[in-house]
């Protein structure tokens, strides 16, 4: 604190007091009024005013410049993101175009009509009777901290539905005669993957949120019975009994399943003729 006290106490330059003391000792008047003294004072004030004015002018001149530079940067960032948005939009348009062309080409060359291959590969939306199976985590699974599937604290909560559980359920449905299956509105194809990332279950790399609604098109009651008697159905039953996983199965008179979001063409041959090659 002594430093601050010192600064406070000696706020006035000590030189003034000393000069006054000297003057008194010499017996001169308190404030000298010679021309030289006044010139000195004027010079000092000129300097002081000059420095302050230059500082003020400088600060004022550089302020708009800084703002201008900033505005220029902001403009460039905006331009860049607008450009990126436009490109993204173009990518989307082109992707949709490619998809529709693919779909058309597949329809033209893949036999047409609702062939078994089309239904199984998820190329066309399907509707019909089937089975609705809802699987959800156990009531107490991971409910301690939030409800999201990512906020779990490790392997302790056994009531959580795992990706392997869903895999068994879906495989069991296929085995029981399902012709088309979707999970939470995502159509499964012959190449769909059910995987896990952390605690979230991914279908074709898209995360799902519980409860998991599995819709399967097939011979309603027969499929339901077949599934519940199969090994996978019993597995699900065991999950329900042992770990409190909530499941419900019901036959539905009319189900609508969308087409798979995109079909990937793995083998293709260019046409012999020039048809459709230029666009």
């Amino acid at each position: 604190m002594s430093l601050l006290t010192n600064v406070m106490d000696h706020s006035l330059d000590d030189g003034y007091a000393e000069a006054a003391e000297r003057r008194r000792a010499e017996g001169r008047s308190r404030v000298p009024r010679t021309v030289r003294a006044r010139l000195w004072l004027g010079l000092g004030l000129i300097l002081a005013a000059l420095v302050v004015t230059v500082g003020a002018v400088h600060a004022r001149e550089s302020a708009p410049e800084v703002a201008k530079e900033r505005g220029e940067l902001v403009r460039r960032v905006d331009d860049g993101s607008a450009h990126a948005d436009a490109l993204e939009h173009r990518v989307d348009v082109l992707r949709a175009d490619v998809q529709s062309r693919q779909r058309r080409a597949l329809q033209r060359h893949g036999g047409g009509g609702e062939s078994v291959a089309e239904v199984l590969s998820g190329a066309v939306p399907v509707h019909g009777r089937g089975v609705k199976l809802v699987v959800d985590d156990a009531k107490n699974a991971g409910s301690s901290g939030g409800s999201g599937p990512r906020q779990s604290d490790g392997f302790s909560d056994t009531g959580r539905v795992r990706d392997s559980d869903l895999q068994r359920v879906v495989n069991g449905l296929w085995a029981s005669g399902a012709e088309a299956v979707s999970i939470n509105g995502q159509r499964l194809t012959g190449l769909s993957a059910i995987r896990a990332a952390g605690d979230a279950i991914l279908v074709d790399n898209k995360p799902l949120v519980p409860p998991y609604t599995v819709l399967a098109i097939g011979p309603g009651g027969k499929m339901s019975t077949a599934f519940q008697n199969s090994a996978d159905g019993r597995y699900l039953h065991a999950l329900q009994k042992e770990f409190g996983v909530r499941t419900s199965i019901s036959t539905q008179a009319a189900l609508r399943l969308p087409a798979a979001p995109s079909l990937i063409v793995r083998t293709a041959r260019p046409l012999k003729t020039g048809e459709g090659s230029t666009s």
Partner: protein
Amino acid sequence: MIAVLGLIVGVVAGLVVRPVVPTVVEPYLPIAVVAALDAVFGGLRAMLDGIFDDKVFVVSFLSNVVVAALIVFLGDKLGVGAQLSTGVVVVLGIRIFSNAAAIRRHVFRA
């Protein structure tokens, strides 16, 4: 009279001539301004105290500006320029503040 004239001449010169501040001394300009303000307020207070001395004023002004700039320059070379300029501003700011308070006491008697 000469004092007021000096002030006006200084301001006008600063506005008209628009001296280009070299980029080398640019970082020290704010410090110089604060030092100049400190000297001016000190002089004003001394005048009101009746112990004003023109020589002390001019010398203290010049040395304040030079020493403040020098300290900051040295700090820049040592890599602690920002901290040292903060220190200079704090010390000069406290002085300006207490001098302004003394001037206020003189003028308003309160």
